[in-house]
């Protein structure tokens, strides 16, 4: 009888335990998001956050990472300033105990945050900031980049221009670059690259408007009088807008192909009415380039459902991909332990909206594509898209590993 009572008690206790969850509740995964919600990066950061949120919602619906670690997002504003970025990321790590930080629009902020994440052994995902130096030098095993970096984008542009030049029979071009360090060095790189990939092209004239030029009319008429086959522009972003606005009333873009500006889906949507058609533009992750990838199609559907029919921009796509890259790193590690996840992500091939892509082991740069196309209206969308799209794969645009090793050795000296 006593044994029966004892057994019943043991049985009752074990049922109680199992009902209340005898294992301790799975720990949530604290994910930090430190973006420039104010300052120059506002627009892109807002879009990126939306992409992150869609991914988090989807993953949490299935129970979170590893189906048991619900993601808890801690959001901070870096104001697109490196000093504020450092402060907010420290807060996220020390106060909110985040295991990973997605950060920032500004490369300057991402570069400043990198050593903090390394110091506190926290994963750092640069989802949209694309300076090559985030991963090339001062290497951190905790930092991963899911956006095509500045080197890849510059190479991609040259590659695409060379292809266009061949098909369209272009021979001469004019460069138009802002007269300061970035403008000069980018122009120099472009001319050097084009000499290699399209030796039949020659520079007709180099024009150097000063940074912040407000009157481009003389440049516009001067270029039109030279009748080049195309113009390669390396203008700082604001100057690029001013130039296009002033060149448009001359019918400039109907006559001369204008290459070199970055037009993400954000610009294609916000400047839908004003953006000149015919621009040859570069982009980082346009959704319409990969609608054949089921993950992208699903993302676009979910994103539009959540945000009143709005189409996701490049920044939203990369924000979404950043969370899914982390998810697949955690799945490979089988744990949310940061050290294990960091090791698992090194060289990992991940399935993202942009296809199956690998993190390059030497620098943790995602081997993603860049995109070059012509701004054209498309009846499928209420804004222009990049038509005649050329996808330049990482293999054709990434910096050779030997150069990265040399840069790191030079850094040590």
């Amino acid at each position, binding site marked *: 009888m006593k044994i029966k009572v004892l057994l019943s008690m043991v049985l009752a206790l074990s049922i109680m335990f199992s009902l209340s969850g005898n294992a301790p509740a799975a720990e949530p995964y604290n994910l930090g998001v430190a973006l420039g919600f104010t*300052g*120059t990066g*506002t*627009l892109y950061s807002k879009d990126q956050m939306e992409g992150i949120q869609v991914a988090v919602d989807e993953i949490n619906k299935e129970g979170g990472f590893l189906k048991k670690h619900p993601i808890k997002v801690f959001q901070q504003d870096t104001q697109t300033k490196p000093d504020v970025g450092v402060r907010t990321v420290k807060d996220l790590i020390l106060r909110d105990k985040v295991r990973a930080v997605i950060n920032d629009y500004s490369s300057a902020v991402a570069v400043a945050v990198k050593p903090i994440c390394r110091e506190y052994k926290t994963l750092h995902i640069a989802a949209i900031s694309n300076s090559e130096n985030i991963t090339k030098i001062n290497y951190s095993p905790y930092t991963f980049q899911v956006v095509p970096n500045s080197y890849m984008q510059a190479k991609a542009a040259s590659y695409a221009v060379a292809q266009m030049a061949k098909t369209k029979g272009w021979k001469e071009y004019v460069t138009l670059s802002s007269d300061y360090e970035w403008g000069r060095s980018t122009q120099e790189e472009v001319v050097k690259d084009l000499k290699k990939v399209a030796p039949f092209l020659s520079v007709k*004239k*180099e*024009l*150097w408007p*000063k940074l*912040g*030029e*407000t*009157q*481009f*009319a*003389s*440049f*516009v*008429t*001067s270029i*039109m*009088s030279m009748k080049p086959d195309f113009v390669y522009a390396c203008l700082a972003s*604001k100057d690029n*807008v*001013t*130039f296009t*606005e*002033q060149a*448009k*009333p*001359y*019918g400039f873009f109907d006559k001369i192909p204008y290459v070199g500006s970055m037009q993400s889906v954000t610009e294609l949507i916000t*400047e839908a*009415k*004003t953006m000149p058609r015919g621009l040859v533009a570069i982009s980082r992750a346009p959704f319409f380039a990969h609608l054949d990838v089921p993950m992208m199609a699903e993302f676009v559907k979910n994103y539009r459902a959540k945000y009143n029919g709005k189409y996701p921009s490049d920044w939203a796509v990369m924000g979404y991909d950043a969370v899914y890259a982390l998810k697949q790193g955690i799945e490979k590690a089988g744990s949310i332990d940061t050290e294990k996840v960091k090791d698992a992500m090194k060289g990992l091939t991940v399935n993202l909206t942009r296809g199956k892509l690998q993190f390059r082991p030497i620098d943790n740069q995602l081997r993603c594509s860049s995109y070059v196309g012509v701004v054209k209206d498309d009846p499928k969308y209420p804004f222009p898209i990049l038509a005649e799209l050329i996808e330049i794969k990482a293999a054709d645009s990434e910096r050779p590993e030997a150069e990265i090793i040399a840069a790191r050795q030079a850094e040590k000296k």
Partner: protein
Amino acid sequence: MEFTFLFSQFMSGLTYGLMLFLVASGLSLIFGVMNILNFAHATLWLIGAYICFTFWSLMEAHQFALWVSIPLAALATAATGWVCEVVLIKRIYKRELHEQLLITYAMALIFGDLIKIVWGPTDRLIVRPSIIQKPLFLFGAPIDSYFIFVILIGVAVAVGLWWFLKYTKYGHIVKAAVYSREMVGALGIPIPKIYTWVFTLGIFIAGLAGGVQSAIGSVTLGMDMNIIIQAFCVVVIGGFGSLMGTLVGSLIVGEVFSFAILYWPDGAMVLIFVITAMILIVKPWGLFGTPLRA
């Protein structure tokens, strides 16, 4: 080089020159009459551009939005200028030139930050009415059709100022004050009031120029610091305080810059500074200016 392209380049230079004239004429007028070197002039010009954008965005749906916004921006900027004169400028009439420059430079920085607070760091873009979105062809050369409006405004301001100074009673008082403010004061004419209105008029023209500029490209932070240097070049070449000098100086700068882009792009900006330096050496008071008042 074909005539059409040379003509097109000439028209670009003419417009550029007249835009500079709109900025520099107020600067020169204020200096000529009040002896105030206003470094914040271009920042008030930029405020005019931002105000124009604000008015335009309120009426965006209408084709007339831009045409109404420009004069409204000029008036609102003039009101800002009036407040500046009454609150601050009035107190620095008798200060040394370098002190005035420092104070007005501080004003430029303060206004720059105020712009950031009010309008934010994002570029502001005005969509032009459809009537001026297509090029106009003159002698076969493509011309931005909005530039015809810019040229008309430039000419109207030049003629209006000339008429005001030559044929109106207040114009005569202003001209007299340039030469001897004490004598004008002794005649019972309230000099401080005249100064307030001259300053307000100068800033009105700056606001008008800002409104006109706002439809030429995006309105962005820092535009003022670029144009103020060129405006100073214009008044140095033409002569501080001389309307005719400012007009001629503006056209010289505009055309030299425009044709240099065509033939010697690397030296386009340098040429303007070389001309400015040469004028300073050979004719320190500019082509049409008179020696500075003691």
